[in-house]
């Protein structure tokens, strides 16, 4: 392994993008992710890349559309209200099958909400915040190291399938400083981008990138093709961490920041004689249904813990399909559950 550095999550996302070969970043200020832009404003010129600050989030994502259409690895980042503004273009990116990486350092909503950590954009990211039948891959890291590794991976997945990949964190992950160990060299998926708009040089037929298909038969075929691609992603790209689930009394489902807290709860519960497991989806879409099915009968019940009112909960229920009981515990508005709160919920389930 390569150098070890102490860095904040936002800086690591930015550095990882450079290491993944991203040379085009289009940003716009919004707390708590602006450090990504600060870092890349300095670092991109050094790496021979382009940093552009757009006049709005809408402009930034459309710049990604333009750069991606030209075959470049491009990224934008924002936080919840800004991601809402980007939704139109995210749908267009999906329709036009353009690879792109979008970072959402989620803050609590709705509306202006606040700037504190939350996971309330789960539905928007996973179920499709824009219009139309589309999916994007959603990666949910839980440490600075994972922010690094998954950011690199995000570019590979985006290029491999010509899809949008979202990295979803929160202010805790973005602002927190941890040790990150960089690899000497990244594995970069070398995509065939012969579809890109690079100029024909009068030597080939012109390429065409679009999301408009006025003929309904053609548009249905296009949609079927997209769906086929999404099924392939579901088969190949599911990532999950299963921890301590053998013989567990209760299995907790949690992602991102919350999963870190749950790991401490597991230790505490063990001291009190309760065996708690954790299923941590690393890809929120595709959702790791199989991990849930595998352990469906093991615990007395499942408990989903999130920083929202119960969003991933719905996917946990769909995955279990009635095979076991499911409970939920959530905090909102930037409140973070203490270990004791989660342990108390587990104890309540044990008493049922």
């Amino acid at each position, binding site marked *: 392994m390569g150098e070890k550095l102490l860095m904040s999550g936002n800086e690591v996302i930015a550095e990882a993008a450079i290491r993944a070969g991203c040379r085009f970043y289009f*940003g*716009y*200020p*919004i*707390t708590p992710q*602006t450090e990504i*832009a*600060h870092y890349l*404003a*300095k670092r991109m*010129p*050094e790496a021979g890349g382009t*940093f552009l*600050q757009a*006049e*709005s*989030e809408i402009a930034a994502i459309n710049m990604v559309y333009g750069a991606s259409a030209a075959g470049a690895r491009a990224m934008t980042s924002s936080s919840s*209200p800004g991601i809402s*503004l980007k939704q139109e273009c995210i749908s267009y990116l999906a329709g036009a099958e353009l690879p792109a990486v979008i970072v959402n350092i989620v803050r609590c909503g709705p*509306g*202006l909400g606040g700037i504190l950590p939350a996971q309330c954009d789960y539905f928007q990211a996973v179920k499709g915040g824009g219009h139309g039948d589309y999916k994007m891959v959603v990666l949910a890291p839980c440490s600075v190291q994972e922010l690094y590794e998954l950011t690199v991976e995000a570019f590979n997945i985006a290029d491999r399938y010509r899809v949008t990949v979202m990295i979803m964190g929160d202010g805790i992950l973005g602002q927190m400083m941890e040790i990150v160990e960089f690899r000497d060299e990244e594995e970069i998926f070398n995509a065939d981008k012969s579809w890109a708009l690079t100029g024909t040089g009068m030597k080939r037929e012109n390429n065409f990138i679009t999301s408009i298909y006025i003929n309904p038969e053609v548009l249905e075929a296009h949609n079927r093709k997209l769906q086929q691609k999404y099924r392939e992603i579901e088969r190949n790209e599911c990532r999950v961490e299963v921890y301590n689930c053998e013989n567990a009394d209760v299995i907790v489902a949690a992602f991102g920041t919350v999963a870190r807290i749950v790991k401490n709860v597991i230790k505490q519960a063990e001291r009190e004689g309760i065996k708690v497991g954790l299923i941590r989806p690393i890809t929120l879409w595709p959702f790791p249904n199989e991990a849930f099915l595998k352990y469906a009968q093991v615990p007395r019940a499942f408990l989903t813990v999130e920083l929202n009112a119960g969003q991933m909960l719905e996917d946990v229920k769909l995955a279990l399909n009635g095979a076991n009981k499911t409970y939920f515990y959530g905090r909102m508005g930037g409140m973070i559950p203490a270990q004791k709160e989660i342990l108390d919920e587990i104890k309540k389930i044990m008493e049922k």
Partner: protein
Amino acid sequence: MAYNFKEVARKPERFTGGHRMCAGCGAPVVIRQILRALKPEDHAVISAATGCLEVSTFLYPYSAWKDSFIHSAFENAAATISGAEAAYNGMRRRGKLDQEGETKFIAFGGDGGTYDIGIQALSGAMERGHDMVYVCYDNGAYMNTGIQRSSATPMFADTTTSPVGRESQGKNQRKKDLTEIMVNHHIPYVAQTAAIGNLKDLYEKAEKAIYTKGPAFLNVLAPCPRGWRYEASDLMQINKLAVDTCFWPLYEVVEGKYTVNYKPKNKLPVVEFLKAQGRFRHLFKKGNEELLDMIQKEVDRRWERLLSLEASN
């Protein structure tokens, strides 16, 4: 009635103390004075774009605003106030309002929320002709999120997204001329002003803007001690230098007719304005004389153009 600073200052405050704007910030000085131009019996509906002003003056239930206040998001202060004004007119038409005094509609936005992300909503509101005033307090960067460049940032200023370093001498682009963009909407009243001296220019323009029927636009310089890097106590001096160097000319355009309200007897070189601020410090390193020269030429060009517009009325 001639402007009397003491009398104006004695008017009840409509923008009160206790807000959380920084010491040495230009914006609250500007806001207080603009609101003093309202007749005491008149009401105001204030809309603000997301920004320093909004987050520091309105965290419900705490508010520094004595008047009604509405905020929705970053890009749409002008649209939000348009809706409020339209609703007010509709209710008045149907005889549902029986209050005394007039109700005035005033939107405030920083340069990020006005020059950049809010320009679409602003342009729409001005063109539709709502009876409102839009005030841009221009501090030349996104100060609320930590000093990122905007299209109002002056050339060569150091910001966190136009950082000075080996590859960069700060922001590489010229400052957008929003006042002229608004003039070209051919609305009844457009003015550019700043808080200098006894704040007469600011007050009189605010009064005209508020009491001119139809849409009006004010572009007001609002220095930022953190972003511009000056001592809090230097605020008024910085304002004065901006005007005396003609970096920020005071002028107004009434029904298309230009008036330059202040022509410094002794037009100072722009370096006097630049050297008072840390964001331009790198320009005074040896070898950067050319950059200073570029800034001076640009200031001169815009000033001469303005004078010729006035002359050709």
